């Protein structure tokens, strides 16, 4: 992939953009996850055990962290693009020689960084509450990175497609939010009726959470290799779509 050297500036700018409002973009989602952890942990700790010998809060934490990674990676690229489009300052980028590949790497890269920063924050704040295991740390890193990249890419597509904040909210609340909540963050899909189990297998977010959780416990609903194949394929597909939209100037060059 050929990149001009301007892409590092765009990456830097996109990281600085969210870092300048880090209370909103990093601290707030960490706090939300901590609240989920405390409330669900308190209510369900004595009633639910998903894996033998693993407390529910220990099962929940990786799922919550991954959900935060995914949602914030999506929020980063999508909100940056929609704000720039609506405020008109996207023109500063459109006037530059940066290629569609540079745009892609910078927007997705900054989304990965924000997603991982929030995920790390969740572990830093809540990790002392539960006994954490790290059965296969490499899988943790792989799924965190690939999942964040996938959601950063989806955010890029949503940011290009949406013309107003209302459309973006619809994309986020009616597609991204249900897919993350119904991906096994709070439960194992083996606890679901057969129909919902089958349906969950069609949700790529399930594979991200399941693979990520495998890295902690060495247990998962499906093999991590299967999860990686599904998530990797999904990432390639959405990346292809995003690159095509950027190359053709979809809704940004008329």
């Amino acid at each position: 992939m050929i990149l001009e050297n301007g892409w590092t500036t765009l990456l830097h700018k996109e990281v600085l953009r969210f870092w300048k409002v880090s209370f909103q973009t990093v601290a707030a989602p960490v706090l939300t996850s901590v609240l989920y952890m405390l409330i669900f942990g308190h209510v369900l700790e004595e009633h639910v055990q998903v894996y033998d010998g693993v407390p529910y809060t220990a099962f929940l934490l990786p799922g919550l962290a991954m959900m935060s990674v995914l949602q914030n990676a999506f929020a980063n690229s999508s909100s940056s693009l929609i704000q720039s489009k609506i405020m008109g300052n996207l023109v500063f980028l459109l006037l530059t020689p940066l290629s569609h590949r540079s745009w892609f790497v910078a927007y997705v890269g900054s989304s990965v960084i924000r997603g991982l920063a929030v995920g790390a924050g969740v572990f830093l704040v809540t990790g002392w509450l539960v006994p954490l295991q790290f059965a296969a740390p490499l899988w943790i890193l792989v799924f965190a990175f690939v999942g964040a990249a996938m959601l950063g890419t989806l955010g890029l597509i949503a940011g290009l497609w949406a013309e107003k904040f209302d459309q973006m909210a619809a994309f986020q609340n009616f597609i991204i939010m249900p897919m993350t909540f119904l991906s096994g963050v709070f439960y194992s899909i083996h606890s679901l009726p057969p129909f919902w189990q089958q349906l969950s297998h069609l949700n790529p977010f399930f594979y991200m959470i399941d693979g990520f959780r495998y890295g902690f416990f060495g247990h998962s609903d499906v093999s991590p290799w299967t999860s990686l194949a599904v998530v990797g394929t999904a990432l390639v597909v959405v990346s292809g779509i995003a690159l095509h939209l950027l190359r053709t100037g979809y809704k940004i060059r008329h």
Partner: protein
Amino acid sequence: MPSTPALSFQSVSKAYPARAAGAAPLQALDQVSFDVTEGEFFGLLGPNGAGKTTLISILAGLTRASSGRVQVHGHDVQTDYAQARRLLGVVPQELVFDPFFNVREALRFQSGYFGIRDNGAWIDELLEGLGLADKANANMRQLSGGMKRRVLVAQALVHRPRVIVLDEPTAGVDVELRQTLWQFIARLNREGHTVLLTTHYLEEAEALCQRIAMLKRGRVVALETTSDLIRSASGQVLRFKLDGDLPPPLQAKARVTGRIVQLPVHDAHDIEQVLAQLRAAQLQAEDVEVRKADLEDVFLQVMAGQGQTSAQEAA
């Protein structure tokens, strides 16, 4: 062998799809052709909706032409866009800014997008030249409209483009900014930069531009040197103040600004006829004077369909 023009527009057309079923597509540009030579200060004039911003958007890569070709120093803006954009600095018409950053950050980022690092000396020179030095660390949101306009100009120049495109840069800004801006741009033009300017302030265009193209409904209707354009104006202008409505035969060709009336005249006989019509209508003209036609008179004549130059042949 002729040198490559700084800008070349070749049979550029742009049609927007019809907004309603059964409506005709909007022809924003229709076979626009002209060149701008290197080092020229070139004016692109026309009323609102004439197609000036569409043409600049095509040049800048913000909009795609339906047909035709646009080149910057021989580089096609579509097929060789990276090189074309490196040579172009565009000041957009809208007052846009990124609220997350201060002035210096905005300029550093814009410089970096073009792959230029360590551009501090030139950024400092831009800040000084455009009267922004004391605002370098101010957030963009804290700046007045005029200051934001200056930053837009600085952002367009930060990668030292050979061609500077100014799309109504002085719309709604004060006299001080206009003077600062034109001094700075004129200096860059003297140093060899090509300038393409659109403006509704025709006295600015007359003072600055060596050559002018006029657009009307997407077509070039005049393309001349500024002095030739003014020479082509029909005669002189009779100017006077008047309380009351002009007689209908004079209204059609008059330019009225409050009490001030300006009418094109060719000779003493024309002047006498105008004054006779005023007397017949029992109107008293005050502060009567005759002056040479200026670019605004030419513009009005061309837009009214009079005094049209051989633009399409010239193009």
